């Protein structure tokens, strides 16, 4: 309930701001809604949103799969961790923009380079989180599994995976917010479609209505994914904690 009131207040403030600043600096909500509707009717909105969403999902999945595998390996193997850790710190601290530019220069302005850039930007974050998870694995349960001769599969499924699940969920949640921001930059710099591309177009025309008409549905979509997919997933990852202490 408070959330709805808060949202209404936001729109009201926007309206007031638009009246004070004038359409050159802040278009009114209704004007943005009209542009949004026009874009939706022409099919451009759905197409560009779809393309961007596909890039977000592909880059996100790739980064999560590769990052988790690498993170768990680093958490378990000290020598590998010592070897890879400095690189990880370098990649973590390299600006996303630099990674994207290198990807485009080396790989050309194509979808593969775009995907590589997105994945590389998210990867270290997933690695670091899952590495923490692998380090926090309970050796006591490991010993239990050894004494009772758990098979490899049984050990992963029933002993290791449930312990890693909360870390995976945390990496996924933080990851999505990161990935969709990076995807926009990737599109702005070197793709001929997608929300980022449209925003660039709007920026060059100084068309704030178009900019907002793409920004708002995109943000709304991400909030929906966050609250209806990722958050429930995170909750179910630690459901057993709610059974007592």
């Amino acid at each position, binding site marked *: 309930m408070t959330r709805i009131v808060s949202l209404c207040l936001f729109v009201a403030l926007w309206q007031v701001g638009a009246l004070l600043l004038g359409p050159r600096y802040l278009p009114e909500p209704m004007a943005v809604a009209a542009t949004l509707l026009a874009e939706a009717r022409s099919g451009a909105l759905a197409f560009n949103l779809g393309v961007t969403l596909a890039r977000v999902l592909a880059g996100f999945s790739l980064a999560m799969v590769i990052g988790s595998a690498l993170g768990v390996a680093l958490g378990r193997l000290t020598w590998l961790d010592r070897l890879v850790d400095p690189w990880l710190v370098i990649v973590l601290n390299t600006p996303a923009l630099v990674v994207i530019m290198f990807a485009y220069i080396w790989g050309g302005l194509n979808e593969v380079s775009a995907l590589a850039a997105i994945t590389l930007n998210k990867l270290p974050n997933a690695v670091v989180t899952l590495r923490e998870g692998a380090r926090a694995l309970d050796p*006591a349960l490991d*010993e239990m599994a050894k*004494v*009772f001769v758990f098979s490899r599969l049984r050990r992963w499924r*029933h002993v290791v995976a*449930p312990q890693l699940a909360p870390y995976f969920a945390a990496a996924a949640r933080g990851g999505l917010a990161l990935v969709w921001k990076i995807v926009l930059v990737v599109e702005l710099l070197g793709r001929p479609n997608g929300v980022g591309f449209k925003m660039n177009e709007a920026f060059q025309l100084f068309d704030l209505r178009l900019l907002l008409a793409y920004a708002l549905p995109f943000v709304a979509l991400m909030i929906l994914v966050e609250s209806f997919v990722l958050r429930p997933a995170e909750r179910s990852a630690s459901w057993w904690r709610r059974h007592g202490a």
Partner: protein
Amino acid sequence: MALEIEIARKAFRLADRGERIVFDRFSLSVAEGSIVALLGPSGCGKSSLLRIIAGLDTDFSGVVTNRPARVGMAFQEPRLLPWRSVADNLRLAAPGLTDEALAALLAAFELEGRGGDYPGQLSLGLARRAALARAFAVEPELMLLDEPFASLDRALHLRLRALLAQRIGAKKITALIATHDLDDALLLADEIIFLEPAPARIRGRLPIPAPRGSRDENLTKLRASAAIYQVNDAPGNGNSEGAT
């Protein structure tokens, strides 16, 4: 075939670069089917010995021979998987467990109706019983029990001990029970091995021929027979007459 443990040397590295020797030329033979209690003060190496026998600790010089394939173990803590129900915890340890056998086990450890519960919902006493049930679920040829009654209140301790005495006597298995409580050893074991503080040495072995069922009434006499080993009890563990 008797279980043979030969430890030439086992030491733990300490933080300040020194080391603490736990075993130095230690050997122990446990006859097949006999139940042996390892009795000694805390920190004398009982847990280390069980971990070496279980194969969890391989960082020692020496050898354990004739370790059977099926080993059941109850650790000092229950070590149940908190994200699996009690029944699933048992099934995961013993994949061949039938539903009837599972029900019988839960009943034997007074866990009827708790199979669907998660470990977080159990009290420590119940969790320990579940851990013991799990150890029995694999139908072990060798049972290792590490302080099975630690940090339980007195009443629970006695009940669980009675349960275990009944259970352990019913099947022919080799068992090692680490404890610092003389009464536990006297009531459960066929033989008590008295250990000295680290580096662990066997101070003496006391066979207990009396049948397990009749020991409760003869406990005072049994305690007296152990007195020659000068068992010094830690205060508050319930044996008032064990010490000389």
